[in-house]
């Protein structure tokens, strides 16, 4: 069964099929349709929706709901995402799962409501205080807004840590055909660690405080060990890369622009392909290194080179030191296919 919906609405459908029990959120453009859809759909099927007084409250409600063993989510955009960082750090520190959707807009500060990818580092590198990293998934279609929101719940509960769906204003607003998920996900059993307010979970404790430094260090080591295991869930996609001379590296909406640019470049005699990380953390480092080996690489992004720098870092970690060119726009200006094609021609000249 299909529906023609906005990316923002697909997020809510994915969350509900994943079994999300509770939505907490504060309105912000261009993510508000997620709250609108959640306000209607969550109560309609017996789930909880609450408009919080601010994003700080939203994320701490996520913390509370997760501590209570529930599947919970919020959605926001840059300014709200910044406010949430405190709570995300507490969730990571207390090993709590939950899904945060960031429909990125242009910044810094108030910025504007048009698409950007300037929250890359904030999402991928932790964002709040302390040594932690979230799972970060980057959808590139309305279908993936739904599917990756579902996967975010699965991975968040697998690793007991927050998961971020990192989208952008364009994906949130665009409509495409959504094929509804085949089935609802099975609910994880949380009685071993969560606090349900019953006899079975009475002894459980949720906290991120370890007063003694050795204990806190041990906690950090355990977290890092957990993050290392996330490598088994890396995911990426390639398009026309088999014989490519130039690999366009892009995530989210930029990967779709890159896709059209690669087709255009091929029509003009330049063999271009696209490498797209689907998981930004864990990062598909080996797949990227393999794909760009012996080829030129250019990143397409809607930020100041945050993603390009990370691509170079991951290549370096995989033992490859390689120049990676950059084609980007910022401030809500979406890079056009023409601009990508022109930049690619300079790289290949």
């Amino acid at each position: 069964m299909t529906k023609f919906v906005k990316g923002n609405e697909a997020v809510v459908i994915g969350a509900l099929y994943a079994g999300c029990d509770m939505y907490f959120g504060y309105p912000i453009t261009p993510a508000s349709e997620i709250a609108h859809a959640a306000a209607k759909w969550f109560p309609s099927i017996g789930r909880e929706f609450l408009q919080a007084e601010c994003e700080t409250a939203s994320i701490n409600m996520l913390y509370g709901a997760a501590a209570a063993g529930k599947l919970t989510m919020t959605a926001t955009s840059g300014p709200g995402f910044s406010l949430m960082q405190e709570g995300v750090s507490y969730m990571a520190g207390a090993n709590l799962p939950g899904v945060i959707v960031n429909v990125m807009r242009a910044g810094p500060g108030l910025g504007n409501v048009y698409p950007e990818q300037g929250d890359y580092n904030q999402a991928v590198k932790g964002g709040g205080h302390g040594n932690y990293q979230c799972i970060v998934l980057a959808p590139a279609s309305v279908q993936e807004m739904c599917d990756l929101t579902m996967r975010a719940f699965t991975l968040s509960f697998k690793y007991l840590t927050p998961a971020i769906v990192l989208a952008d204003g364009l994906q949130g607003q665009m409509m495409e055909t959504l094929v509804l998920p085949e089935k609802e996900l099975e609910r994880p059993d949380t009685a071993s660690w969560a606090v349900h307010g019953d006899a079975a979970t009475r002894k459980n404790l949720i906290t991120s405080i370890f007063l003694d430094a050795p204990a806190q260090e041990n906690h950090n080591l355990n977290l890092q060990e957990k993050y290392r295991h996330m490598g088994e869930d890396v995911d990426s996609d390639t398009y026309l890369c088999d014989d490519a001379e130039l690999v366009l590296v892009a995530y989210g909406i930029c990967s779709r622009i890159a896709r059209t640019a690669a087709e255009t470049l091929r029509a003009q005699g330049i063999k271009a392909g696209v490498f797209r990380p689907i998981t930004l953390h864990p990062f598909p480092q080996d797949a990227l290194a393999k794909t760009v080996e012996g080829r030129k690489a250019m990143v397409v992004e809607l930020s100041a080179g945050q993603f390009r720098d990370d691509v170079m870092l991951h290549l370096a970690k995989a033992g490859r030191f390689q120049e990676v060119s950059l084609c980007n726009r910022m401030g809500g200006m979406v890079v056009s296919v023409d601009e990508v094609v022109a930049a690619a021609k300079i790289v290949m000249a």
Partner: protein
Amino acid sequence: MTEKKTLGMYDSFIRSGKETRATHYCAGCGHGIIHKLVTEAMVELGIQDRTVIINPIGCSVFGYYYWDCGNVGAAHGRAAAVATAINRAHKNACVISYQGDGDLAAIGFNHTFQAANRGEHIAVIFVNNAIYGMTGGQMAPTTLEGMKTKTSPFGRDPLTCGYPMHVCEVLNQLKAPVYIARVSVADTKRIMQARQSIRKALEIQRDAKGYAFVEVISPCPTNLGLDPIKTAQFCIDQMEKEYPVGVIRDLTATAEPRKPDAATPTCREYFENDESQAPAAEVDPSAKELRLKFAGFGGQGILSLGICVAEAARMEKRFTTWYPSYGPEQRGGSASCSVVISGTPVGSPAVDHPDVLVCMNQPSYERFLSEVNPGGTVIVDSTVPLNLPVPDGVKVVQMPAIDLSIKLGVPKAANTMMLAALMKLNVTGLKNENLLNALYASFKKKPALVEKNKELVKEAEQWIEDNLK
């Protein structure tokens, strides 16, 4: 606290790997007494299994050393938000938010106020000792006028630091709270009163009646720099003068218990009951990709015209994207949308170079005309003067969409006129039947408009027949 075991508390308090029966609180501190009052009420009311206590940041951050119930530590000031979610997650849980004055009345006051205003089913125990304890004796919102602290070394000056904050009285302005009281643990008589109020707050949770707030005036000898007896006397003489004790509100007799949740459909029942859905897209490499742009002023139905075309494409199993671009204003500014129809998955949903351009106003005609692909078609409203050079191989057609819709008495239907032009000129490659069905489906909630639009389409087609063919 005595060596005697307290039911509801752990037998020994393990911290830093050592077992002990002593709490981590200073001699003369009120927390130990308040912990015990909370615990006794929890046990006596038979709700120990159901109880979840939010351990705040402050001296009582280690409440979980003592309380044998569900414990959740919260970030500084956020206990009310955390408690809100826990009770909504488990409506049978008795949730206690135990907070100090910095946590509750400074950094967390908005959360406190909003949770009280929503009437969350939580019991808030607000420990007011007029100072920040764990952080080391800084000024709190509840610090008395003239009182010296680490951050008010010359004494609290209301002209620069404001006045002592009366939280009970502020919350008493709200409709939702069921119970609000201020008590003290400065002497035995007062402790007995505090016992009753705390018990009442937990009873309200047991019976699911709503929000209860108990402020407890509590001695902090360490940070006041006084011995325990003098600190207790300070509470009685100084603090109670500023913060009078007593029950401020008690609506327990009339408060209704929360109603059980109503039955609802499941997720699949809710989303999968719609029979009128388009099929999933199918790959057809022979289908040429068509990129369309619709542009005009907001309110001219530009965005819904794009959706109609996209829906018709979906009926024909095409991969389809629709992407809106708004002006800075929601109404009256420029609006445009991009639609891509393809036999393979769509790359960029943003249309920079359209094959089909529909323009309802002059700014969009000026903006997009030069971008149209060779072989493309531009349909522009007749109100727009054609005073620009047309790119080679591009066909421009004028359609009096706005005038016709006004003449026919439905000025909002200019977009329907444009749809008729798209059909009559056959520029989308889509079946007219699908375009019309998509148009009618958009009026699902206003059936009267379907008939009206059928007439409008006929009139528009007739006009094109007479004037363009």
